[in-house]
């Protein structure tokens, strides 16, 4: 009886199990093996020991890409969370038109990243873009945005804030779920709006903040599309054309995120062994973050949520 039950479960799970082995287990093990070899698309892997890892420590582009990704983790993740909380608190308190506002703030999250990035590059064009034109009317000399090494990443943050909707909806559900009795009690104690937020709302949504922080870090570790397209479109040259654009990272490597450099090293410079060493390092970091999330969050444990 028990054996039969397990066999039934196995038939339900068979495709997924096979998928995990073929598209996760096998390539992960290969990546570790390849990281100790040197090869390109035409040659066979040749064992080089730790050379790729040594090379990582000396690669200036790699160091820059690590700095860029760290910048995104330190700036983008908190800015996104604070904005999403602000927006959801505002939405929760609106009584008229709440549905319309919710839809307006949510929709950009669904826009294809490539389309959204093109829209923002046009919007922020230094010479003729509407944002700088408007700033000029106000007497402000607008920055070069995506064309400036200093402003390219802040421009990506703006683009990311536009697509804040998905995490905002999760915060909104949490904010709406705070029991009204807690607010009543706080009000009786004479708490003002800020104190109600600080001592009632914020502690109640803490698990969601943790969730948003961890998934935000994971998202930032794989941040690729927007950085790739922004660099290519802002520089005005091809993104694909037979593979990889020479304009990835434009301007001056300021948009080379870690995965973007990994991809470029592997498929533009054909350093496939080296790219795998970078992949293994990325895996270690992403895995550590995931384990942290699993240990802190009940929803992800194997128990029924």
């Amino acid at each position, binding site marked *: 009886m028990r054996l039969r039950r397990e066999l039934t479960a196995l038939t339900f799970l068979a495709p997924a199990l096979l998928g*995990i082995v073929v598209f996760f287990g096998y390539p992960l093990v290969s990546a570790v093996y*390849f990281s100790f070899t040197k090869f390109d698309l035409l040659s066979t892997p040749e064992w080089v020991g730790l050379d790729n890892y040594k090379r990582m420590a000396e690669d200036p582009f790699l160091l820059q890409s690590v700095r860029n990704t760290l910048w995104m983790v330190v700036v983008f993740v908190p800015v996104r969370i604070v904005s999403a909380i602000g927006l959801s608190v505002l939405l929760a308190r609106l009584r008229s038109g709440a549905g319309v506002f919710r839809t307006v703030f949510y929709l950009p999250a669904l826009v294809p990243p490539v389309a959204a990035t093109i829209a923002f590059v046009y919007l922020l064009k230094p010479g003729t873009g509407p944002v700088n034109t408007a700033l000029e009317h106000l007497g402000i000399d607008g920055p070069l945005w995506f064309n400036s090494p200093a402003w390219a990443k802040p421009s990506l943050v703006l683009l990311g804030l536009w697509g804040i909707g998905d995490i905002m909806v999760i915060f909104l559900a949490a904010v709406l779920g705070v029991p009204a009795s807690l607010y009543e009690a706080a009000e009786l104690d004479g708490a003002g709006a800020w104190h109600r937020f600080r001592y009632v709302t914020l502690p109640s949504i803490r698990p969601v903040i943790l969730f948003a922080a961890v998934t935000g870090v994971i998202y930032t570790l794989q941040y690729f599309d927007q950085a*790739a397209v922004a660099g290519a479109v802002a520089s005005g040259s091809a993104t*694909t054309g037979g593979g990889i654009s020479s304009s990835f990272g434009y301007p001056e490597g300021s948009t080379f995120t870690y995965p973007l450099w990994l*991809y470029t090293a592997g498929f533009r410079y054909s350093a496939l062994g080296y790219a795998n060493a970078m992949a293994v390092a990325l895996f270690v970091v992403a895995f550590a973050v995931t384990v942290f999330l699993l240990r802190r969050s009940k929803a992800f444990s194997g128990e029924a949520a």
Partner: protein
Amino acid sequence: MTAVLERPAVATTPKAVRRHNRLAWIARHSIAIALSIMFIAPVAYLILLSLMTSNQALTSDYWPNTWHPENYVRVFQVTQLPRYLLNTVIYAVSATAFMLLSSIPAAYALAKLRFRGRNVLFLVIICVMMLPPQVVTVPLYLMWARYGLTGTLWPLILPTLLGDAFSIFLLRQFLLTIPEEYLDAARVDGCGEWRTLLKVVLPMARPGIAAAGLFQFFYAWNDYYGPLLYTSENENAWTLSLGLASFHSVHHVDWNLVTAATVLAMAPIIVVFFFAQRAFVQGVTLTGVKG
């Protein structure tokens, strides 16, 4: 809920407080309206740009001098857009269908069947879901290249036949909310697990399935990394995202056409969203934590 909290208060509070409440109401709505304008502006600007002549699109004008809706026809004629659109539809539709086929049974087993290693398997699926795709990129690319399938859509579509980690996670979370009693009743009536899944669980899980299907469809429609990796060597297999990203260089000065194509890439997503809004928002909240 806030209404419950505040309404009785209004009736008993003095005028000053009521005025304060009204001012707060105006302030909140003004902020919301201002933010809404900022959220709509990028798309509005894009649409206006797409209706200009190619010369005017290069200027700093916001408003078209003359309106050129025919840009939306022209972009189909002078670019490969029809091809990209077809490829994107093929990818998104088949990936969604295959994902549902392979992931619903897996999610059902994880949520409702008891077997050894269930918790471990669930943890593995979370790890797969969290893994940056770039980690396994090179070995997977080499694997598909060995079978001569790079330059086609197959490397994007075939894996969905073998389950998708995020979809399995999402569907499992939803299936957990179906009370055990319904399943027990079906089993007492002599239904096997497959029949229980088909006759009892599927109809009850429709909102969850809709959400997972929509997520997969949108993911495939928006995907850039996958098509860049596998299809960039063969333009006939490019999807909208890939085509859009390269338009800019080929049709460098025709910003009106580039923006028209960009608007066309956004439009179906927004239309689908309006038809399926409820399932979608429910799905998003389901991915969040509950405690």
